[in-house]
């Protein structure tokens, strides 16, 4: 039995690579030159994380070819991410709420 492989062509690889490089320059530029704050929110970190997530998505979808991988592989990649987020969210929930005070308690 022969195995069928779907994979991106060279042009796609190069475009993705250029996009990754472009995003790298963008994240450096924005971190050095923009200092935008929206109330207590620091927009710089949100932007930087958003760019990093975009880059990660490109690498995963094209370089790692998850786009053309089996549903199972996608599910397990998702499971890794899901449990990572649980660790972040539930872990941080302690540290942000530790000094909350409620009137009368």
């Amino acid at each position, binding site marked *: 039995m022969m195995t069928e492989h779907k994979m991106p062509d060279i042009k796609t690889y190069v475009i993705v690579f250029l996009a990754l490089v472009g995003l790298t320059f963008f994240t450096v530029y924005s971190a050095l030159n923009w200092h935008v704050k929206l109330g207590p929110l620091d927009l710089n970190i949100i932007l930087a994380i958003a760019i990093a997530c975009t880059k990660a998505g490109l690498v995963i979808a094209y370089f790692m070819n998850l786009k053309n991988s089996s549903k199972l592989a996608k599910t397990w990649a998702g499971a890794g991410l899901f449990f990572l987020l649980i660790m972040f969210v539930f872990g941080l929930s302690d*540290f942000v*709420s530790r000094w909350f005070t409620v009137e009368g308690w």
Partner: protein
Amino acid sequence: MSAATTSQHKGSVNYLNCDYSLKSWLTTLDHKRIGLLYLIAILIFFLIGGSMALMIRYELLTPEGDFLMSDTYNKTFTMHGVALIFFFLIPSIPAVLGNFLLPLMLGAKDVAFPRLNLLSWYVFMAGATLGTIALVAGGVDTGWTFYTPLSSTFAHGAVVLAVSAAFVAGFSSIMTGVNFIVTIHMMRAPGLTWSRLPLFVWAHYATSLIQVLGTPVIAITLFLVGVERAIGIGIFDPKLGGDPVLFQHLFWFYSHPAVYIMILPGMGVISEVIACFARRRIFGYDFVAYSSLAIAVLGFFVWGHHMFVSGQSMYAGMVFSVITFLVAIPSAVKIFNWTATLYKGSIHLTAPMLFALSFMGLFTIGGLTGLFLASMAVDIHLHDTYFVVAHFHYVMVGGQIIAFLAGLHFWWPKMTGRMYPEGLGKLSALVTFIGFNLTFMPQFILGYMGMPRRYHSYPEEWQVLHVLSSAGASVLAAGFLLTIGYLIWSLWYGEKASANPWGAKGLEWQVPSPPPTENFEGKPIVKEEAYHYSPELHEEEKEYEHV
């Protein structure tokens, strides 16, 4: 490797008698042999950890700390925990019975990655060696939890060696998990759909999920402790403003789900044994199957309940407490469904069945007392008392070890080709049940009265309960030694086992005992649901086609 000498059956070549050399065992890629290698390895750690348990109990016979000095006592209970958790309970059912049975139950020739499987055993042995060196080189007195800053700054002894041992053994666990996940997904025989899988397989899938996604977190956490102690990079160091509670978060992110590594495979065993000896399909198969996954996933949301009194935010504690109560639902689903399976079943009280019934009772007590501890207010009183000790021993010993024994007896004929002596098996089930309850029931009362864990002296009025508990430990030890004794005896003198002595369903019973190296002649095709039992206990015809 004594098992290799058991099968004298002329003419039939099986996985045990195909090659007797030591080299053939140490380089084997056969999942069945690797299962036996694990069995021998964990037996050693069971004996080490078990004898430490006895030393702890003998120290507690008298109110004064006289048999073990406080330092030795601390090291003893630490190594008791490390040996039995990392080197016995976690690999017990998955690495021994799981390794042996998964490919057989799935109708496969082997696991997906046999070389990775063998590597996992060697990695386990490397971790085990480090652990043994840590024990000999001065021991560790931090408790198996390695809490900082005690472990990173103040503790005496071989902390770095001990955390390395757990770190290395963790990777063995991850390898087993990866192997099982891929095996269950990719290696099932034609016709063996998810809804026809034995519940043992479902339970192992859930276990592997925890092994793969939880273990790396404790690996990195123990790595940070090791780095802090050995090099001095203080991530958790309070002197710099580091937060020891962060260590506890990361530690319990793994170690709470790991508690379910130490119960889920046992539940899988119980499902098989109960269905076989009640001669009925498991009641509510789907619910029992999905409850395994539910326990595994929910297990990742509840770790904060170990830190109610550690300075964790009260609000986070409330959330963790509520979710902890939810774990009771899938656990209860299992217990209720097993009970419903027994109802109007044709029950045969063999030794594995007696162990399984004792599991149901003990696990129920262990699980329900967990709810006491999940309530924040009650936990403030009970935290770090013998109530906690009794609770988790009811789950780990009364649950996993009893289930391991049930499974070992149930599949012993398949693994070795020999029957264990049935009378002694029943006696052992009885003795362990009595010994276990005598050991740990008094500890609930002691804990409720305020006896803290990890102390070697106590006020005199508690002596009666402590003496009862220590007496129970001796009975329990006698039960375990009896079991080990007659199982080894049966390797040579046991009655020869047929392919399917219990008339059980499942592909593993369709091959000879012991199975040939390649497991199946041809490829089995599955045409019916799991546990398609008729009420009578007899050897049945082959019901699976082979092509």
